[in-house]
């Protein structure tokens, strides 16, 4: 009887040891959350929104696993820890890709800005040699005013780039290029018309 009691106490001690020793991986949770936050702050929310959403979903799944194990009598946080470690690794990897994505967006904006500049310059040069005469002078004056307006808008591209709004800058530059090209086409058509008449 005495031996049985000793075994019972030992058994309860061992069970208690197994169930209480497996503690929630709070440090892994905090590290994973911090890694996601760092990726987001680095610009993932703008430049990799889909990937960031996937990371958050992974984190949710890991937390579900932590909670499931937390409610079990025999806790086993190994798989949850692995999931959290993967979240952290993925978040770190995502964060590492952000500077390249930002650089690519910036380069695209700069390229679009250069193209807009070229389109504006071409339109201005064409207007300079446009046939200013009967039937065209008023149109040319109007187009010059249009180009002045586009030139003012062009300055806003740099403001957007300086504010790191690269997508906005690209869109504005593409629009200005489009409008300047329309002016160029109109001037070219006028020149061809006059040349054709001669």
């Amino acid at each position, binding site marked *: 009887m005495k031996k049985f009691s000793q075994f019972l106490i030992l058994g309860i001690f061992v069970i208690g040891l197994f169930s209480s020793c497996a503690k929630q991986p709070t440090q892994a949770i905090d590290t994973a959350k911090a890694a996601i936050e760092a990726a987001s702050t680095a610009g993932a929310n703008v430049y990799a929104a889909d990937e960031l959403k996937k990371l958050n979903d992974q984190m949710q799944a890991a937390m579900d696993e932590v909670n*499931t194990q937390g409610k079990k009598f025999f806790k086993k946080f190994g798989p949850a820890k692995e999931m959290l470690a993967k979240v952290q690794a993925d978040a770190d990897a995502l964060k590492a890709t952000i500077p390249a994505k930002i650089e690519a967006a910036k380069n695209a904006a700069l390229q679009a800005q250069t193209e807009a500049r070229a389109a504006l310059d071409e339109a201005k040069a064409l207007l300079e040699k446009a046939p200013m005469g009967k039937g065209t002078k008023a149109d040319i004056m109007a187009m010059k005013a249009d180009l002045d*307006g586009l030139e003012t808008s062009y300055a806003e591209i740099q403001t957007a780039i300086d504010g790191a709004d690269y997508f906005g800058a690209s869109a504005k530059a593409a629009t200005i290029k489009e409008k300047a090209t329309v002016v160029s086409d109109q001037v070219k058509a006028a020149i061809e018309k006059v040349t054709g008449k001669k």
Partner: protein
Amino acid sequence: MACHTPPVPPEVEKAKAQENDLWRAGAPIYAAAEYARYVDSLRSAREKLIRQNARLPWFRDYEEVRADYIVILAQGESLIKNVQAEKRSQSQDSSQRLLRVEERMGKIKALTLMMNEHAPVRENLARAEVAFREAQLLIRNEKYNELAPKLDTLDKHVRQAEEALSSILARYADDAQVARWRKLAQETIAESRRRGTTAVLVNKLARTLTLIKKGKEVAVYEIGLGTYGLSDKICAGDGATPEGRYRIVKKNAQSRYYKALLLDYPNEYDKRQFALAKKQGSIPARASIGGLIEIHGGGKDSLTNGCVGVENSVMDRIFPEISVGTVVTIIGSLESVDKVLAGLRISGS
């Protein structure tokens, strides 16, 4: 109690996929409150799922969990419809707003072409066109949440263009001024009828030259003016076209502008106005009153410095009809500019 481990209901995975779809569709932006409720429901269902998963396999019962997830999936279905409806509504509202702005821009642009007015109206219009195109792109990419500031910028530029235009056209919206012009035109027609003579009526805003014989309008021709043609001429070099009653003082069949009919500008009224402007300091002290205001050929789009330009073919027709002494009345408009603006039926460009 079942003897086997029950499987996790398939609705759980479906809900995960649905939540992703909702996020991609923009539910957190376009139906924020409803999406928050959906996420809450999902969270409490997940809690129940976790509780069941924490049980020993043969004690697990997913029936309640499944029932909750079925409700959530229905909630999600309704939510995605609401998101789509909200996006459709925002798209329609924005598109209609853009259409209204486009119509305003079209009218302003048409007026600038008609008036030969450029900066600052056209400049602001060009900036508005850039903002307009950017707004169109945002609508096309369903980025309605970024649209509001762009539409505000667009409105600002269109308003600035309209204000610049209004300052030019202020006299043309002054009913008393328009009434004076109308009276002047009526007197010219009445005199032509009474004396059986030919007269010319130039309407600057309508850009027309009307030939009148014995009080009847016999022909209407299009004309062109200078950059500041809608203003009343005060002094030399202002590019404005004078308003008032004049007479032809010389016919020139060998003009550098094809053929020309010289007016007796400045008349006595012009001289008084010029002296007054000088006295008030509204023109430079060294300014001269100017002269050599003609109706001439060279094209109605040749941008004069205050003269009235017509096509050479028109000059050929009116030149023989007009003699030295013919009355030429130049008015701003027969109608208030409000009516003119309302009457415009001009498309975008």
